[in-house]
């Protein structure tokens, strides 16, 4: 089953692999092979059986519950026939693994040097100074700065990206024939992901190890894979070289996965437009009057320490942010984790404290100290959260969840509220007859529909969608975005769409604002910002987004594998950031001028 262009004997060949948990079969008759130096991407949504497959190869299926049959050959040995002690010498020695969660995959109470060293000690038998030198060499290989010092540090002192490098060092420590990487970059920010992928590719070239790369993201596949295996509901539905699969996908499902990638990104327009300086703040919007206007919003969190909780400094989560949203318009707020984008949404609806700033909704300035002003804000601005499983009360029927805010705000009650609830459920594509059902009876996508219906119940002017589609699988995500677009037309509601997902942003937003360390560095019409990014950070962010077709691999600028520590948002008390100044690239397209 190995690609046609390799004549080598596969490092790993799986044939007829079937995995069952108890009486449920989760993987059916799976066959594939990987040659040395090659990367096979196994792609699928959650529940497709891709992670279970990797655990079965490692012999790590849950004891007494999981059973695997078929054959998993590493060289000439069938791993499924090995006993536990033989399997132990394979694990970490011949096959090693990198997991998704860098934050929890390392032992918090052991030094990272000891954790990497353990694998080397077990499989290569090194001890003492020799062992330490071998660990240092691995740390240098994965470009961890100051390895002599960092070797004795504990995992919590490393950032997510650095921890994933430690995991990679551990995986590579014994020169394994195969590395299984289970969504290794999914939990990372996009720029860190790009660096991690680049590092992995580079190390693969050096060592010639085979990689089984498990992911749900076709962009990552386009970046890194030689061969692709698409899985759905425990079965392989498409296999081939990465070029075959991307250029000529046979299965409709594969096509939908490929179509979900962002399309504007990576098609940067040529030439730069001369910028000119402008006065004031970039408050442009589409239409006659803004629905939301945010002026000079700053959010700071006190950081306390010492004996009596003395104020040590302030975390500047959001700094002098200004923007406006017109009627029926969608503004996308993008940025990496910690950029302050979610805090802005929370500050607007009073879930986070505002240090300074003016917020105006539909022409009325909000006075957060005035209960009446606050109540009108609660009606006019609604929020949809990321986690559709967490944002509904599990004990409340969905109908009652939609009616409750109407009652609290005296918008409707009794029969009228019921009628409106049923109508709304219909609008978001759910059967009103299921109003008495509890949230757990719905799927993730359906629950997000319920949350949208609940938000619309208040007839809001603005909905803040905080990573509202980020937790959903690709196909569901597209459906929810389409629903939001349809409802926007019907209800003339505006969205503040907070997301790190460029594909989603590109699809739904009219304008985009880019956040970096609490500040907006660029704002403008979608096509301008994504197509002709003016700010250095925006350019870096966009170039880190995975490509959409393997053909683009050569066209993109190479990723630097660097290790600059992130800037600290912690500032001394009373720190005043320098005033911002802006340059205009085009009508309504502004970038921050470097200070």
């Amino acid at each position, binding site marked *: 089953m190995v690609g046609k262009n390799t004549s080598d004997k596969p490092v790993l060949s799986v044939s007829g692999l079937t995995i069952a948990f108890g009486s449920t079969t989760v993987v059916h008759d799976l066959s594939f092979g990987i040659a040395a130096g090659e990367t096979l991407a196994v792609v699928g949504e959650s529940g497709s059986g891709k992670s279970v497959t990797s655990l079965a190869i*490692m012999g*790590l299926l849950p004891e007494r519950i999981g059973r695997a049959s078929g054959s998993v050959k590493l060289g000439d040995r069938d791993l499924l026939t090995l006993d*536990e002690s033989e399997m*132990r*010498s*394979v*694990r*970490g*020695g011949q096959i*090693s*693994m990198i*997991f998704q*969660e860098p934050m*929890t*995959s*390392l*032992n*918090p*109470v*052991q030094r990272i040097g000891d*954790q990497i060293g*353990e*694998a080397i000690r*077990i*499989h290569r038998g090194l001890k003492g100074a020799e062992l330490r030198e071998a660990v240092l060499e691995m740390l240098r290989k994965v470009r961890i700065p100051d390895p002599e010092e960092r070797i004795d540090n*504990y995992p*919590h002192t490393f950032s997510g990206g650095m921890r994933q490098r430690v*995991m990679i060092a*551990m995986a590579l420590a014994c020169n394994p024939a195969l590395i299984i990487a289970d969504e290794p970059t999914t939990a990372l920010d996009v720029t860190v992901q790009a660096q991690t992928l680049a590092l992995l590719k580079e190390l693969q070239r050096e060592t010639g190890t085979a990689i089984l790369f498990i992911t749900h993201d076709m962009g990552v596949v386009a970046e890194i894979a030689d061969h692709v295996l698409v899985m759905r509901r425990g079965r392989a539905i498409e296999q081939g070289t990465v070029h075959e699969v991307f250029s000529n996908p046979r299965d409709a499902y594969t096509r939908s996965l490929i179509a979900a990638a962002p399309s504007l990104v990576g098609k940067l327009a040529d030439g730069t437009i001369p910028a000119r300086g402008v006065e004031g703040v970039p408050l442009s919007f589409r239409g006659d009057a803004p629905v939301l206007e945010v002026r000079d919003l700053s959010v700071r969190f006190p950081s306390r*320490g*010492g*004996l*009596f909780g003395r104020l040590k400094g302030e975390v500047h989560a959001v700094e002098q942010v200004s923007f406006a949203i017109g009627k029926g318009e969608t503004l996308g707020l993008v940025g990496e984790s910690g950029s302050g984008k979610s805090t802005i949404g929370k500050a607007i609806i009073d879930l986070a404290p505002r240090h300074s700033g003016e917020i105006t909704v539909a022409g009325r300035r909000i006075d957060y100290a005035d209960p009446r002003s606050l109540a009108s804000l609660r009606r006019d601005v609604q929020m949809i959260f990321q986690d559709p499983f967490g944002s509904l009360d599990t004990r409340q029927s969905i109908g009652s969840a939609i009616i409750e805010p109407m009652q609290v705000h005296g918008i409707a009650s009794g029969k009228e509220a019921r009628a409106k609830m049923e109508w709304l459920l219909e609008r978001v594509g759910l059967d009103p007859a299921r109003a008495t059902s509890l949230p757990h009876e719905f799927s993730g996508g359906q629950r997000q529909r319920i949350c949208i219906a609940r938000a619309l119940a208040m007839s809001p002017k603005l909905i803040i969608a905080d990573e509202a589609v980020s937790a959903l699988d690709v196909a569901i995500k597209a459906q929810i975005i389409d629903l939001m677009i349809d409802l926007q037309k019907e209800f003339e509601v505006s969205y503040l769409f907070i997301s790190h997902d460029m594909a989603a942003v590109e699809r739904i937003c009219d304008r985009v604002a880019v956040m970096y360390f609490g500040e907006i560095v660029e704002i403008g019409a979608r096509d301008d910002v994504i197509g002709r990014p003016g700010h250095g950070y925006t350019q870096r962010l966009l170039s880190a987004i995975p490509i959409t077709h393997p053909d683009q691999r050569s066209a993109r600028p190479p990723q630097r594998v660097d290790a600059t520590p992130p800037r600290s948002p912690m500032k001394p008390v009373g720190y005043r950031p320098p005033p911002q100044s802006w340059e205009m690239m085009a009508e309504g397209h502004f970038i921050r001028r470097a200070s």
Partner: protein
Amino acid sequence: MVSFLARRLGFAVVTLFSVLTLVFLIVRILPGDPVLVILGDQASPASVIALRQRLGLDQPLLVQYGRFLLQAIQGDLGTSMISGRPVTEEILAVLPYTLELTIAALILGAALGIPAGVWAAVRRNRLPDYVLRLLSLLGLSLPAFVAAIILLMVFAIQFRWFPVISAGGADTLTERLRQMALPTLALALIMMAYITRVTRSAMLEVLSQDFVRTARAKGASASAVIWSHALGNCLIPITTVIGLYLGILIGNSVLTEIVFSRPGLGKLILTALSQRDYTLLQGMIVVYTLMVVVVNLLTDLTYGFLDPRVQYK
């Protein structure tokens, strides 16, 4: 780390201060004039006034409070109303007995409980697990005096292996150990029950975590995963719980001391209660609190060694 400890120390001081205040207030608000307790109902008014002056009870409450605090800081907890000896002296005379008993019970309980808990977790939902869970539940259902009485009945009265009364007067080390054995065992069995349970649950929690899977993926052996990776992480909750249960242990030591007629704080506090010796009682409560506060500080200090993340909290 330093600021973390400073904060905990600050909390300890606040706790001690609050307890001192509370004790001072309770003893003065409660019915029963201590002077009448000492002199009896038939005392002449003149002698009552004289004693009042001597005890400082004629001063305003605030002055009494200030003096009480000042003396307590210097380790002076007043003089016993009944025996006339300094309270500190009375307490220090019996404190070693209680300390040796509780510390021995703690060590024995941990030495038995931690391996038992690990074993139960590893054999989850199999016979050893069920047996250990039932036994530990039985152990923590056992009131200390019942445990003590059962041990007394079986090993001291029935088999006569150990003395019935373990009141001092032991000349040799063997005799001393023989006297300590049963009371220690009574306390240790209960402590073991608690520690077994918390070790088991902490172990189950840790064994399901990602880094355990990482360790297994490295090819580490089952015993390395359990004893090095998992137990290292369990020690933090186990320490917390031992710190918390030390209060129970100290309370139980009172009951055990009564059953075995063993000298110690338990017998002293009963004397104080039955004789309504308020100064002694007040002093003892302060000492008990001090013990708990010291244990909590030690627990916090232990975190520093067990958990590298603690300095960042």
